[in-house]
């Protein structure tokens, strides 16, 4: 708790933490948006969400290894993960779309373990990051430092999010996705191939996560086994914001980034992950208690 005093004595440190947290929180919001999409349309909670993120990170990492600038990894990862998402849908997910939650949750949990262990075997368990070669900005007599790549990634997330929203509102396929999420049966009667819509939604989610992961590899680090943390972050954001609430997802994502950063500083870096997982439990219980007063529960 010594760091708490430090924070009061030098409030400028708080600015640093806040900026870092918000910049990184944008990536959480993106992953959460993908999760909310699959959840809303297919009624599946994809536990393998975080593994998609990390896989995207590895795409950027290997591009950087090959001498290509990792920013190209953002579209590359999106394409690779889109293909993987489609393949996963055709192999596994289409069998569980209409099954009960027990099956879908455990099946994606299995996929998550499978992907994490695959990455561990193929890429090794080392912590990696893709060097982007950007510089750093200094503010307030170098008390606040902002890595330019974090700003670039923040902007990239905003652009991606905007493109997605416009795509879902305007395009034919986007409208089909929204129709399916509202009422799959009615959509089928109206001639929408819901199976294709599901496949596309799942692949699109994987692509979103892949792009987010490429940004993570540049701004932070990746590691085969930290995928679950991203799943939990995405889930936390969706639980706080609710389904189909884009503004809420963005705000909750940025907020989560900031809160997590402050907690990591105050409690010490070794407890940051513990804080994240405990926060999830506390939020779930809290929301449920509020609902319980009206004789309702989280559905």
């Amino acid at each position, binding site marked *: 708790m010594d760091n708490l005093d430090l924070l009061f004595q030098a409030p400028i440190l708080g600015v640093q933490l806040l900026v870092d947290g918000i910049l990184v929180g944008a990536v959480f919001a993106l992953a959460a948006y993908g999760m909310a999409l699959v959840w809303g349309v297919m009624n599946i909670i994809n536990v393998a969400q975080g593994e998609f993120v990390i896989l995207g990170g590895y795409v950027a990492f290997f591009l950087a290894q090959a001498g290509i600038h990792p920013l190209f990894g953002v579209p590359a990862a999106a394409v690779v993960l889109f293909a993987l998402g489609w393949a996963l849908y055709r192999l596994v997910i289409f069998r569980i779309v209409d099954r009960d939650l027990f099956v879908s949750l*455990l099946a994606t949990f299995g996929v998550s*373990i499978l992907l994490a*262990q695959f990455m561990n075997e193929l890429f090794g368990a080392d912590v990696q990051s893709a060097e982007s070669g950007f510089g750093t900005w200094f503010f307030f007599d170098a008390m606040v430092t902002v890595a330019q790549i974090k700003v670039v990634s923040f902007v990239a997330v905003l652009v991606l999010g905007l493109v997605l929203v416009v795509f879902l509102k305007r395009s034919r396929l986007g409208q089909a996705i929204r129709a399916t999420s509202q009422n799959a049966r009615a959509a089928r009667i109206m001639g929408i191939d819901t199976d294709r819509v599901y496949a596309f939604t799942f692949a699109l989610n994987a692509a979103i996560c892949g792009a987010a992961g490429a940004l993570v590899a540049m701004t932070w680090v990746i590691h085969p086994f930290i995928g679950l943390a991203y799943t939990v972050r995405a889930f936390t954001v969706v639980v706080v914001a609710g389904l189909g609430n884009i503004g809420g997802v963005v705000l909750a994502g940025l907020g989560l980034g900031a809160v997590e950063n402050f907690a990591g500083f105050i409690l010490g870096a070794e407890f940051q992950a513990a804080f994240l997982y405990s926060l*999830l439990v506390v939020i779930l219980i809290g929301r*449920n208690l509020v609902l319980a007063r009206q004789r309702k529960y989280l559905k």
Partner: protein
Amino acid sequence: MKRAAPYVVALALGLSLVVPWLAPTYLTQLAFLWIMILFALTWDVVGGQMGYNSFGNILFFGIGMYVTAIIQVGLFVDVGAYTAASGAASLNLTPEQYFGGLFLGLGAAAIAAAVAAAVLGAGILGVRGHYFAIATLGLGIAAGEIASGWEYVGAGSGMVTPLYPGAVGGREEFFYYLSFALAVVTFLVLRRLYAGRFGLAINAIRDDEDKAEAMGLHTTRYKTMAWCVSALFLGIAGGIVGNIVGFIDPRDVAFAGATYGVWMVLMAILGGKGTLWGPVIGAIVFHVTQELFWTYLLGWQRVALGLLIVVIVVFFPQGILGWARERWPEQFGETVDAEGEAPAGGGEGGR
């Protein structure tokens, strides 16, 4: 088959009693077989019989392990100093001290785990469905992260349990019988519980919680009780496993969500969740397969584990016993109506 079953069980139990003389080299693996059976049985209380999928039951296992070790050590020396020396200050205890500390520790582990379940259950068991599953997943990992940051219990470098005072080989035999006894007691207690009002209540909660509540059932009380029963036995098992392994690593032994935590779910489903014998069968099949074949996979075991989960859950969700029940219903004392029987496990449809 139904008539032969008691003889098979009696034979298996008899064999288990004399196995230290038959196969002394495999005692540790066989002790783990009993632990696996216990894992699957305790998971099934909440996951199968009550329909609340918990991914975080490993929490109680880890709590039990740490509580036992802390008491075993703490009775004689300061725990903080002991872990700081990280095993260099290995304790030399007399048999009386060792067994006294061990059984005291196991008792405390059972209480601590059950209390943790009661306290957490009051909040978490109100959360249903997906939310419950992911909340418990978070709980298990959070505990592992906290333990690996907490200096008092050795943080990330873990904690060594005291040395067994008896003869060489006596340790394996002792812990084999201890885990054997615990698994059998767990089975008998659960069988007794399922046969009574408790079993009916948690099955009602699985089938329709709102209706169960409307019928005047104190659902929260039963749910918490079920989790406590599960935690109680898991806590004791944790204390035993800590001493079998001899070294408590916070993430890989105590709060080992990626291995034990996943296995307990998998074994219960493999055997048939929501049945008494299913978890036992699933645990035996899984553990034997794992011990026999997994060494040939050369490091790809965990990939295979993920694949196995997907395959079992997607294609074989009813489990071995569930499948047998569909295949030979008369063996399970069920009469089949030839007409108008709804297909088993039919979903809501029309989503």
